[in-house]
């Protein structure tokens, strides 16, 4: 890999790009963690939000409200800098960043999914009930499969927001693509000026996000057709 990069871009830029690419893996891990963690948590919130029990619905509503109203940057500060100082504990950057993004993702995803569930006509619920399905069976076999198709394009679209969101984690010293880009840009080396490094960093983010964007568009089109 290093050799390939060196032969393509020369030793200086080959090295730089190699560093940035290896930092990119941490961006990817953080995105995946946020997405899986946030997805699972978001799913639970969605179920709470439509459950017949009022206190559960209130809890979910309050949670979603809270984490949709706090800027991601603020969450990162709170978890990565606030809590460690306040409780005198050591919170590793990856844990703080992962938690902050998970909270952020779960609140947004559950709103998207709830919206999709609510867009399924009442008649579908009624038809499911009328043939003797229980609430859970109805949700699982009739409503959720239809909602899933509606929600998939925006879910994939939101993955892009998550990836871009991870770039803020540099602020609590998480070693991702953004942080390495900043480090290199600050290195004062000739040829590593910000106006050279940041476009490369941006290009790497683009390469991560663009396929998802295409995929989301494709899913959307497919949904219109069926």
């Amino acid at each position: 890999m290093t050799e390939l990069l060196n032969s393509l871009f020369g030793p200086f830029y080959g090295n730089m790009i190699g560093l940035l690419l290896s930092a990119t893996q941490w961006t990817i891990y953080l995105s995946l963690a946020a997405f899986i963690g946030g997805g699972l948590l978001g799913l639970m919130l969605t179920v709470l939000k439509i459950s017949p029990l009022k206190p559960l619905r209130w809890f979910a509503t309050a949670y979603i409200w809270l984490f949709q109203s706090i800027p991601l940057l603020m969450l990162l500060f709170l978890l990565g800098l606030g809590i460690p100082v306040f409780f005198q504990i050591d919170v590793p950057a990856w844990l703080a960043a992962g938690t902050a993004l998970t909270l952020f993702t779960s609140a947004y995803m559950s709103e998207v999914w709830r919206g999709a569930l609510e867009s399924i006509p009442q008649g579908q619920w009624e038809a499911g009930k009328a043939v003797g399905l229980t609430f859970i069976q109805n949700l699982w076999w009739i409503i959720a499969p239809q909602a899933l198709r509606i929600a998939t394009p925006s879910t994939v679209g939101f993955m892009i927001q998550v990836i871009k969101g991870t770039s803020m984690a540099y602020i609590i010293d998480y070693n991702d693509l953004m942080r390495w880009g900043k480090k290199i840009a600050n290195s004062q080396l000739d040829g590593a000026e910000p106006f050279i490094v940041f476009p490369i960093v941006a290009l790497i983010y683009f390469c991560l996000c663009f396929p998802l964007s295409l995929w989301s568009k494709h899913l959307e089109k497919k949904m219109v057709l069926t």
Partner: protein
Amino acid sequence: MSKWYDDFQVLKDIDLSVAFGERIVICGPSGSGKSTLIRCLNHLEEHQKGSITVNDISLSPGMKNPEKVRREVGMVFQSFNLFPHLTILENCMLPQQRALKRTKAEAREIGMRFLERVKIPEQSDKYPRQLSGGQQQRVAIARALCMEPKIMLFDEPTSALDPEMVSEVLDTMIELAESGMTMLCVTHEMGFARKVADRVIFMDAGKIVESSDPEAFFSNPQHPRTKEFLGQIL
């Protein structure tokens, strides 16, 4: 039995008993509570006062297992409400597999049997949106029959259909009536009422104001509201 939506009383002291095998047509002006009444019978709506007993199951507000009664009572809606993500045959199979725990093979066989009965077995692999309204409504009837219900409820099954498709659905319902099914149909198809109904019930403002056999109902309505209503639709 009585029912309220907040302060508004939709059903007022409804007193109705239906014998096994009886075919009842319910009609009346819009907003008179016809849909609400039959939706109370499978607990899609709750009543607040009085009692409802369906096949010896007594329905009560907030009851634990409404599924139990719903498995014995089939319902056909005005807007078909087929499951769009499932094929015609799957529409008929899924409720059997989940609510009655039938095996896939059983469910398929019974599903096909009822699709044949409503005369669309050849559409079984298509999706609902590929079918005409009349065909969709017949599938909805087949889906309900697959549960082998003791009672069938129909809520204006033909009023969302283009006129040329009404008769295919009515023919299916007539055939069902002749097979001895207990049926309660909200409909304004008076030809159907004449042909199959044992009793025609006329509702107005949440009350049953008239209930008689079709002959008497059409030729000699008692209540002025019934006369007015029949004058409008006949």
